[in-house]
């Protein structure tokens, strides 16, 4: 026990004495947590729209002003030929073309029907998809407006219409910060924990201090636990700071209980730190450890459901994401912070993380050899 206490004391003074590491641990995650959610936003704004208007009527003008008034679109080109509108797409000035046929107003009034043409530049898939959808929605609304004007009040609904209204639960305003901040916080804890632990034992190998440790009667699991606990405590501190930032800057207060939240982060830290230490026992230089950890970090982030839901991945990718501890944390964080999930809801994830933690840590103890 006394040995462990001294091991911890040694690790803590080594970590906290290094000014660069201090900054990297405490300041950088805060800065990232403040900055990234503002930029990692799915909402597509400022879509450039070129309109090829062959009609030049009151109705076509109304439609255009309705589109631009939505705030999503910016009218960059207004011509009367599709060809010149296409040119502005080719020169990247526009993302979408809306073609209004000649006789649009006349046809609409006389025949109760008209067709519009929308051409989308699909180079940027997200922008194209969302832009097209937004535009479709606006045109639909416009259509309803006209109908409302024409249909006489007494003959209310000559034929039944299904009207779909959706409401967003747990995040009523579809606020992206609510969605992204817990996920980003999960990633920051992963990054700091993963990198710090993966570089630690390997650093002792590089500097040569491991030689002196190996010749002592110190037990292998003591040594690994002595490495694990300091980072576990630091991880919890970083997470707490992150929660405060989320509250102060974004006004996000966890709906669920803090106990559940800390239980999930604690379990997760054991898993991810164990993974880092495992890498550390396999590598000989910090460079190797860094590169390997980077590889896994990319998988953790991009296949963990932070940006894209894991449910929409292909089957094999779903299996990988199931083996990714970060998936569970991101999911649990969102569940607890936004939805207020309790222990019973996250138990399956906690158990899986527990299995990861035991697997990685015992593997690390096993692979750390005091004799070569």
């Amino acid at each position, binding site marked *: 026990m006394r040995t462990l206490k001294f091991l911890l004391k040694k690790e803590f003074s080594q970590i906290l004495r*290094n000014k660069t590491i201090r900054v990297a641990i405490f300041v950088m995650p805060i800065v990232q947590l403040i900055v990234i959610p503002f930029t990692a936003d799915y909402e597509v704004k400022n879509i450039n729209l070129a309109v090829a208007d062959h009609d030049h009527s009151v109705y076509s003008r109304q439609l255009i002003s309705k589109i631009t008034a939505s705030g999503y679109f910016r009218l960059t080109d207004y011509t009367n030929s599709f060809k010149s509108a296409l040119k502005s797409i080719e020169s990247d000035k526009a993302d979408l073309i809306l073609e209004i046929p000649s006789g649009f107003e006349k046809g609409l009034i006389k025949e109760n029907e008209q067709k519009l043409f929308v051409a989308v530049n699909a180079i940027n898939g997200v922008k194209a998809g969302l832009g097209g959808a937004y535009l479709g929605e606006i045109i639909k609304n416009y259509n309803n407006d006209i109908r409302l004007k024409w249909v006489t009040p007494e003959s209310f609904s000559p034929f039944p219409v299904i009207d779909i209204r959706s409401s967003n639960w747990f995040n009523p305003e579809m606020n992206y910060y609510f969605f992204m901040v817990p996920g980003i916080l999960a990633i920051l804890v992963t990054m700091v924990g993963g990198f710090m632990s993966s570089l630690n034992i390997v650093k002792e190998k590089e500097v040569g201090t491991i*030689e002196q440790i190996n*010749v002592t009667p110190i037990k292998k699991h003591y040594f690994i636990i002595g490495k694990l606990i300091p980072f576990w405590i630091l991880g919890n501190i970083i997470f707490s700071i992150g929660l405060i930032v989320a509250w102060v800057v974004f006004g996000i207060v966890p709906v669920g209980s803090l106990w559940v939240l800390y239980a999930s982060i604690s379990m997760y830290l054991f898993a991810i730190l164990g993974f880092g230490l495992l890498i550390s026992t396999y590598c000989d230089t910090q460079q190797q450890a860094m590169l390997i950890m980077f590889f896994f970090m990319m998988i953790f982030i991009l296949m963990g459901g932070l940006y894209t839901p894991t449910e929409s991945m292909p089957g094999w990718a779903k299996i990988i994401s199931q083996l990714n501890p970060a998936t569970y944390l991101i999911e649990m964080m969102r569940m607890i912070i936004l939805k207020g999930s309790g222990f019973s809801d996250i138990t399956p994830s906690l158990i899986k993380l527990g299995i990861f933690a035991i697997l990685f840590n015992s593997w690390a103890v096993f692979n750390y050899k005091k004799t070569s």
Partner: protein
Amino acid sequence: MDVVSAHNLTKIYGKDKVTAVNGVSFTVSKGEIFGLIGPDGAGKTSIFRMLTTLLLPENGTATVGGLDIQRDYKQIRKQIGYMPGRFSLYTDLTVEENLNFFATVFGTTVKENYDLIKDIYIQIEPFKKRKAGKLSGGMKQKLALCCALIHKPDVLFLDEPTTGVDPVSRKEFWEMLKRLKTQGITILVSTPYMDEAVLCDRIALMQKGTILSINTPQAIINKLPDRLFAVKAGNMYDLLRTLQRNTNISGSYSFGEYVHVVLSPSGISPEDVQSYLQQQGLTEIEWKKATVTVEDCFIKLLRE
């Protein structure tokens, strides 16, 4: 009683099957300073790492304090002190913290064995709040020695403790070892410096993974059958070349400011060599009998 005994110890590295240590056998008695003397790459460090249970031998056996290095490695680690050739204490911890740390991992306290390290520690005590990385080379060695001694080991392994240390500190270091010897600690030390060999009780001369000779330094010197002379001339380069041309001379090599000339016991007489040199037109010849050093013996062994 043999504190350390190695029998046919062999270490082969990697895929290329580089034999670093080739069937080495030796014994070290209690309270002895035993030196492994040899150039870089002779296999000294590999032997130390095997005896300190850090490296598994490919072949052969060894015991330290009567314990087998493979079977009883856990007990051995409690009884030995090891100072690797490379400074391997925590550079970001202070002198005091390093010492406390190693005392603790060995399950003891600094206080308990303070008398053992007192003489050494007192010299670095003024800097106890300084980070170990900020110490000078000599002080680092002293701290490393303190850390290796803090659990009162029976056997101390010092791997090139004086490499990269200034002559004054080197001298001090050897005096410290002598004092430790009086406390009954067995010391194994390796060094590439031949002049340190005479400070050991017994030495093993090593080359390319094998031991060329094991004995007391004096016995090794006495065993050299040849006559040894030191020569100096106006043109040292010509002198060396002239000596090497003469096949009757067993050996000649530069040695400090002199050239050492080795003559086999029953071969050419020194007077003949002197006149040979004069015939060859060398001037300002200075000729004297040289005292044999371990280095001369080592060079002789290498040539055989």
